[in-house]
């Protein structure tokens, strides 16, 4: 007989709800941080909601009452702060009051380097029998409260913490039995408060996304029959960002007056017939084959 798994796994984890914190005043940034854009062109708030939606039953945006009608925030289901001047803890308090049965995945909206892998790792490592699960900062070793899971049992402790006049969420996580994880990628949880930090994060985001977008390869292309006449050459080598023969033919069709649509052609790579979606590799020799007429 197989043994029952130990201790904690017998208890059902509370349903996970998501909360993106967008109630800040962005004083140091001088513009609304929720609306900032990086390489993927989405406002930060929307990007954070999309990242988190994959993991939660419901997603909410935490706002101050006077921000509720702001157009970007008005697109999302909201939970309004009930306390002023408590900082991010006000959002979590309001969420726990509204849905006390839920565990909350809390995310700040100003984490441009946060990626899906970091979020996935947090949720795989979630410890539902603890009060919270959070990463340990790669900068100072303290808990990162704004990319963390707060279980229902943390609510009473948090209310007591605030009632005692405290409002630092990092110290709160240190005061309870928080499961602390090592950050998988350095800087993944850097938050952005000033125009200088925004600029430096923008550079990092560009470095992460640019190599994929601008990847190019050297190819040789040989032309036969009608395509040879229309290209005005037998062969050429070129540097292209085309990833497949289909993309390459589209690119060449903008340069040469090809009359044959791709549907009428076949493709060979390195002297073998291949599919139009075959990924092109550095150094490949590509031939587009017009309708044949041997015999």
């Amino acid at each position, binding site marked *: 007989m197989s043994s029952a798994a130990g201790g904690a796994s017998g208890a059902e984890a509370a349903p996970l709800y998501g909360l993106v914190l967008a109630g800040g005043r962005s004083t140091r940034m001088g513009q609304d941080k929720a609306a900032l854009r990086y390489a993927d062109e989405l406002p930060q708030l929307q990007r954070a909601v999309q990242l988190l939606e994959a993991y939660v039953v419901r997603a909410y945006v935490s706002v101050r009452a006077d921000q509720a009608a702001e157009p970007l925030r008005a697109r999302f289901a909201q939970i309004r702060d009930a306390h002023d001047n408590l900082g991010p803890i006000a959002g979590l308090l309001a969420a726990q009051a509204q849905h006390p049965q839920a565990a909350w995945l809390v995310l700040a909206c100003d984490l441009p380097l946060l990626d899906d892998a970091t979020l996935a790792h947090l949720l795989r490592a979630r410890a539902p029998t603890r009060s919270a699960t959070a990463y340990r900062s790669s900068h100072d070793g303290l808990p990162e409260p704004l990319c963390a899971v707060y279980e229902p049992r943390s609510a009473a402790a948090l209310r007591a913490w605030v009632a005692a006049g405290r409002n630092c969420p990092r110290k709160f996580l240190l005061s309870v039995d928080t499961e602390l994880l090592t950050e998988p990628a350095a800087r993944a949880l850097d938050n952005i408060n000033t125009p200088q930090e925004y600029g430096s994060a923008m550079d990092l985001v560009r470095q992460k996304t640019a190599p994929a977008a601008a990847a190019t390869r050297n190819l040789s292309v*040989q032309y*036969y*029959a*009608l395509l*040879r006449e229309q290209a005005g050459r037998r062969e050429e080598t070129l540097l292209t960002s085309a990833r497949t023969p289909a993309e390459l033919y589209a690119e060449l069709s903008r340069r040469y007056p090809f*009359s*044959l*649509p791709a*549907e*009428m052609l076949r493709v*060979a790579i390195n*002297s*073998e*017939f291949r599919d139009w979606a075959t990924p092109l590799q550095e150094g490949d020799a590509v*031939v587009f*084959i*017009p*309708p*044949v*007429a*041997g*015999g």
Partner: protein
Amino acid sequence: MVRFEFARGAIDTASLQRTLRDPACGAYAAFEGWVRDVNEGQSVRALDYEAFEALALREGERILNEARERFGVAHAGCVHRLGELAIGDLAVWVGVSAAHRHEAFLACRYIIDEVKQRLPIWKKEHYLNGDSGWVNCERCAAGAAHVAHAHPAS
């Protein structure tokens, strides 16, 4: 033994036939394709064959192997001309030797049909009226353009 080859000059069928001889074979079947003076109503003066040789040689060998496996023939070969040909010239030769005539005929028919469909070989016809065109390309390209015009996007 003959395999698939290209020829830039006249094809010597007598010597090709000798390479297929085999004491175990009682049958030899061959096909010859000749340049005709009319195609689709237009008078043809001459034509040019062009091939993507690296791929055509591989694919041609595959076709010959398929014929041997499917029909159990002993030997099979095919030679295709390249370059400019005149009316009446031999453009393609297929030869097969086998124990009996039935499989020899079948294999010969199979090889020429597959060669015409699969090998990257193109034929440009030069017409008596001075025009020229790539067979199977120009007309279909014009047809495709016509379809596009008949159903404009948006």
